[in-house]
């Protein structure tokens, strides 16, 4: 059985599945249930500074979008950081860590951008015996209006500054949680590294309005007829998160910075993809909020079964394995030529490939052959774009078949070169690098 014990930024856990800082980790009751279910660690829901705790709205905190059969695809929340007393949280953290010493206990913190505020809270957290802290520079709603959360995460200088304060004032590993509500994730990641961060975690939620009630014209979730943007998460944000994780993992400056991958992870497969793109572990929230804590057993077993099947002995065999394959567009091999191929035995004749190609792409799929309804790829027109594959409802019915070197691409009339050739040296590129 594959070994999935995990050490992330020096923090050990029996598996790489942590619950992200969020409602499921707001109190001992939930966290104990999570540990009983098998979660490897938690990031305790964000603590604020001492004093009267944050308050939440008393109406709906969540909005959602759904797929078929009301399957939750995206969740949006306007809940703030913990609305429980700081000392109640600290007591519970200490007790839970004592009771579950093998699990990772990381505490999320968000206090004002003043060194004194961080200096005040860090020893309190350290005293609980927690394994590390996560700086919440991510939440895009509510707290950001007060200069915290994503308001910090959107300014690399602030990220670096606060990270440095924390590193100077605690022995605990510091994980910086990044907001995706920026233009280039590499800059905040570099800032965290410059401040001395032990790791980054991402993504936090994406600023969003999930829907508008067309009777009341209020955004959802509606609080007395008004709505405020919330933070979007769940399966819908996974592709955004994967890209941001990969960008940091392959950035020359941050490639050695540990990354805790977050964003729509619902299954072991999602987790494996994050690990492959460079995440050292993963954090989960929406999937647990949708299905409960039990899903972690599927994640653990599924990951192990896949690793066993592929001969990966430990997580180190998987982590970052896909990173070298993430490249810039300009380095993609332009001599790689594919054609769509439709398996007529699997084709159910829905015609979606045809109409997608005909209306919106390259007119490369027939509707009729010899007067009979039949969908075939016209190699002379097919650019290999893959749209037909993606709209086809039958898995593996349409496949992209690469042409072998020496074969003629019927669209261009040219023979396929077996050599790698990219845009940087392409004749159409005005700033091409002349071949040596």
């Amino acid at each position, binding site marked *: 059985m594959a070994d999935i014990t995990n050490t992330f930024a020096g923090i050990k856990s029996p598996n790489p599945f942590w619950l992200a800082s969020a409602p499921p980790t707001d109190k001992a009751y939930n966290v104990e249930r999570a540990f009983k279910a098998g979660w490897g660690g938690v990031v305790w829901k964000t603590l604020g500074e001492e004093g009267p705790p944050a308050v939440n709205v008393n109406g709906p905190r969540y909005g959602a979008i759904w797929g*078929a*059969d*009301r399957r939750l695809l995206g969740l949006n929340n306007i809940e703030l950081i913990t609305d429980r007393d700081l000392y109640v949280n600290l007591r519970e953290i200490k007790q839970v860590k004592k009771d579950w010493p093998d699990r990772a206990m990381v505490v999320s913190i968000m206090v004002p951008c003043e060194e004194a505020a961080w200096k005040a809270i860090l020893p309190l957290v350290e005293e609980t015996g927690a394994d590390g802290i996560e700086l919440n520079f991510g939440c895009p709603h509510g707290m950001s209006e007060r200069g915290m959360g994503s308001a910090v995460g959107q300014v690399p200088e602030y990220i670096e500054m606060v990270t440095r304060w924390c590193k100077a004032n605690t022995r605990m590993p510091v994980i910086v949680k990044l907001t995706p509500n920026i233009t280039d994730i590499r800059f905040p990641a570099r800032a965290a590294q410059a401040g001395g961060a032990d790791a980054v975690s991402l993504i936090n939620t994406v600023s969003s309005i999930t829907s508008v009630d067309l009777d009341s014209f209020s955004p959802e979730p509606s609080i007395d007829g008004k709505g405020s943007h919330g933070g979007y998460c769940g399966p819908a944000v996974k592709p955004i998160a994967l890209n941001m994780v990969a960008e940091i993992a392959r950035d020359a400056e941050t490639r050695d910075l540990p990354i805790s991958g977050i964003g729509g992870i619902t299954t072991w497969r999602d987790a494996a993809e994050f690990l492959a793109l460079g995440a050292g572990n993963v954090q989960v929230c929406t999937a647990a909020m949708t299905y409960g804590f039990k899903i972690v057993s599927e994640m653990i077993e599924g990951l192990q079964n896949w690793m066993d099947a592929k001969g990966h002995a430990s997580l180190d065999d998987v982590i970052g394995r896909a990173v070298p394959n993430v490249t810039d567009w300009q380095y993609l091999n332009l001599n790689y030529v594919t054609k769509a191929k439709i398996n007529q035995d699997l084709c*159910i*004749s*829905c*015609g*979606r490939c*045809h*109409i997608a190609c005909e209306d919106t792409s390259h007119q490369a799929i027939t*509707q009729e052959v010899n007067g009979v*309804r039949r969908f075939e790829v016209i190699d002379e027109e097919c650019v290999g774009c893959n749209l037909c594959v993606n709209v086809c*409802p*039958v898995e593996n019915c349409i496949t992209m078949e690469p042409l072998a070197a020496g074969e003629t691409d019927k669209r261009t009339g040219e023979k396929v070169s077996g050599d790698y050739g990219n845009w940087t040296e392409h004749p159409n590129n005005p700033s091409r690098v002349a071949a040596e």
Partner: protein
Amino acid sequence: MNSKQHMSGVVAGRLDPSDIADNFQDLHPPLSAHEAIVAADRCYFCHDAPCVTACPTSIDIPMFIRQISTGNPLGSAETIFDQNILGGMCARVCPTETLCEQVCVREVAEGKPVKIGLLQRYATDHAMDNGADIYTRAPATGNKVAVVGAGPAGLACAHRLALYGHDVVIFESREKPGGLNEFGIAAYKTVDGFAQREVDFVLSIGGIDIQYGQELGDGLSLEQLQSDYDAVFLGTGLAGVNALQMPGADADGVVDAVDFIAGLRQSADKSDIAVGRRIVVIGGGMTAIDAAVQAKLLGAEDVTICYRRGKDQMNASLFEQDLATSRGVVIRHWLQPEQVNTTDGKVQSVTLEYTSQTDGKLVGTGETMTIEADQVLVAIGQKLETSGLGSPVKLDGGRIATDQNGRTSADNVWAGGDCTNSGDDLTVTAVAQGRDAAEAINDTLKR
């Protein structure tokens, strides 16, 4: 147990009224809103979809399903009604398993088609339950069109003509509109007076007057209609029935299945409908199935359908055959009736001869068998009542011959539905033919 359940003879109230009510509930209960969304989501929105081609009225099925899935059931209903104003009834009675759902790509792929019929019902019910006012008539043209028969073909034709601004008078032989939708078709397929509600919906467009008790050849002459109206549409259906021709065929207990079904549909209380304890149904079409199943649901102990050919030749769809057997009806093939045996003029049993097909010809083998019965339901086909038509209306195979636009050989006379020689004898086909004839009439009148 009801004391009458095992009584011999033809008896009403074999089951308690509550059991009968249970038995005659909606065969396919409507989809809830969530079920409809889930079912709609299975539609792939095929291009040039096979289901549309298979629908005699060419409803844009992927579009109406998409409209359901986007929360626009009224728009969905409009898509349906634009092609088929009786889309509500067709959603209930169409043999979808041999039409749209048979060719659904998901049937092809998985053996589980999109529930097109139920989705159509969801949309049309929504529109009708909400009193949707969908159609506005074009300005009056001053043209008058006579429609003979207020069944599916006549109603569809009348609606389309009214839409174009023509004034329509429907001449109906019965005292109630709807045709087979009202008098034929098993009760569990169209519950809660749906047929009449649908007629009201069709007529709500305005410009359609129905005159009842008007039968062609019985005070109503086609020649007169031709001279009084700018065009005439014949949608008479098949008013005649083929009678059993054999000894004992006139015995007490031999009943025409069409009459039996009509009686059921028109009764206020099905406990009043008398059925035998043991029933033999002669025939192999939908009428035979509808009669047999309903007889069983009324409490008949043994109901046996006897058909002279094999399973594959039955006009009733496989779905209908399965429905019948699931309700306890026995279907026997390769048996033709030879004689109804009677005592004191009452049916006692039916003697049937085994048959086989030799060189494509059906022949009796000479061997016979007898099934005990106190009632015989005869469903061996209906035929066109030709007496009122006159010689200008040419027939083909005993039905009215029409061109592809529904035009007959008589001047300014069109026809559609079961009375014509084209298409299957289905509600949906009748609607398509009535509608298309209206288009042709409109084109002619515009010239």
